[in-house]
């Protein structure tokens, strides 16, 4: 999940072609996931999963403590994130605010996979990133989702 989260964040950074801070890329990934799942299962469904994902992520990345989930499922407080010591060195230049965002997105993707299964999760991802190739796990030569 972390690899996939990393990939989505990297995609958003390169799509933006700017040296935007992590929070911005994380927010864009999060927002796309929110729009995608809310479109299928409603805002309440997304909000409940996002709340759980954030709770899990906070235990792994304390930098996320100020972050909150609003009633409509949107993320609040992410812009206040500070760089973390355990930050991925490869991402340091691109994501100066650390890996809290990666942890959160990875947790959210993990919950989607657990509750909805691979087929629906891939469907949501393809819907959110129509230009990206997401291969299913059974694809021998494809990249793993």
């Amino acid at each position, binding site marked *: 999940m972390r690899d996939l989260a990393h990939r989505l964040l990297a995609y958003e950074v390169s799509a933006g072609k700017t040296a935007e801070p992590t929070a911005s890329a994380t927010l864009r990934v999060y927002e796309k996931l929110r729009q995608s799942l809310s479109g299928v*299962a*409603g805002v*309440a469904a997304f909000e409940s999963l996002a709340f759980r994902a954030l709770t899990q992520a906070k235990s792994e990345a304390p930098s996320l403590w100020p972050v909150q989930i609003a009633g409509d499922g949107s993320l609040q407080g992410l812009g206040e994130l500070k760089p973390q010591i355990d930050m991925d060195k490869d991402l340091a230049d691109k994501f100066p605010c650390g890996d809290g965002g990666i942890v959160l997105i990875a947790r959210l993707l993990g919950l989607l996979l657990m*509750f909805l*299964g691979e087929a629906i999760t891939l469907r*949501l991802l393809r819907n959110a990133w129509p230009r990206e190739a997401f291969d299913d796990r059974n694809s021998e030569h494809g990249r793993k989702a």
Partner: protein
Amino acid sequence: MSTQDKVKINKLPTGVPGLDEIVGGGLPEFSFNIIAGAPGSGKTTLAHQFVFANASPERPALYFTVLGESAIKMLRYQQQYSFFDPAKLPESIRFINLSQVVLTKDLGAVLEEITKEVEKANPAVVVVDSFRTMVRKPESDMDLQSFIQRLALFLASWQATTFLIGEYAEDELRDNPIFTVADGLLWLRQTAERNSIVRKLQVIKLRGQDSVPGLHTFRITDAGVQAFSRTFGLTARKRNPPSDRRLCFGIPELDKMLDGGVREGDSVLVAGSSGTGKSVLATQFIAEGISHGEPGIVAVFEERPEAYAERATSLGLDLETPQKDGKLTILYLRPLDLSVDETMQSILDAVQKIGAKRLVIDSLAGFEMALSPGFRADFRESLYRMIFALTGIGVTILSTVEVDESFTEFPFSTYSISFLTDDIIRLRYVSIDGQLRKIMVVIKMRGGNHAKDIREYEITSKGVVILGKRLTNFQGLISGVPVHSDRSDLKEEPAQESRIGSKG
């Protein structure tokens, strides 16, 4: 008003195998329907099947959930069914949770929210699951009725086919004003009978549709809900006119006794005790049909198809080749908890698949035992419906039934199913000259002549072989313990064949 002037109501597929037949060919487009039943009766699954069968990106389906199952849980569980197609998400199917609106606002706000989403998506299908949970106060029944009335009016004008799903107990069916608003009311029920669960559905009302009345068995499997019409989907088919064509057994003496064979489209009962050759006779009947290009079905319950075919081989009858050629299907039906209608649907599917002209049910006792206890009460009625339906389209049915051998009575069947049959052939043991021998007699042939002879027969490597002439030097043959008559000078007389006939 001429047919041309009438508005054409499109019928939408329900996505539930067997249900289209029950509702009269599909659900009317733009109809406002209620699916009612107790929790766990399959309401949500049925609604999902309809949604997946009809939603498209151009005309999607909106599935509103209220205080029951959350959308996440619904997606999690419903995707286990084979009809669930994730490719339909989210363009064709969207789930919208209304719980916040219901909890914090009134029904007016709920209607407003539904209206907003419907106007945005222009859906072909709208489901509200479960609409009953919207009412949290007892005094709000009137509000709910008003809400449903306004919702029905709104959705009809938006050309959406709608389903409201509600938990209702059996006794709430009567005098409920909410049901008067609906165009269609489907009632699902499940009851525990001994160790089995019996599921039935009923179309209480369906405006403008020629639905099949009564209770229909349904089952929930990996494929979702599957319904079994009481009429087995054959209501639309015209009954064939009575045929004069005769179907032979390939046993010359028996065919003579039957005035040339069994009449096409008849239901024949072969009754006898264990070992009298009922299955052998049935096998010969099927094999003879195949040799004349008439495909056949054998439904067996007491032995496996391989064993059945092997036994036929020992009689010089090849059942392997016609199976490979698609001229014969041997169905082995012995799962647990099977409903009678489901079993019969399997037989009907097989009959229709190969265009069978002859059907053997071997045996009725085995058939009944294969059913779950809760369905055995329906056995005779369902059997009657199936026989009526199949013989009506020209299939000739031979059923075997085991009867207790009595030396004081001559029963045809322990099932009191003689009324189901046009023709009865009775096999039995008799004690003659210190030997246990076998006799055969044609008891009845509806609408045809038949011999009244009592004939002795044997089971040989060629199957059932009728011996010599009719037995005339015994009295009381059918008692099983005959006595020699005084006519010792005349041991046998020529068989009468069918010249002494009886009608009916």
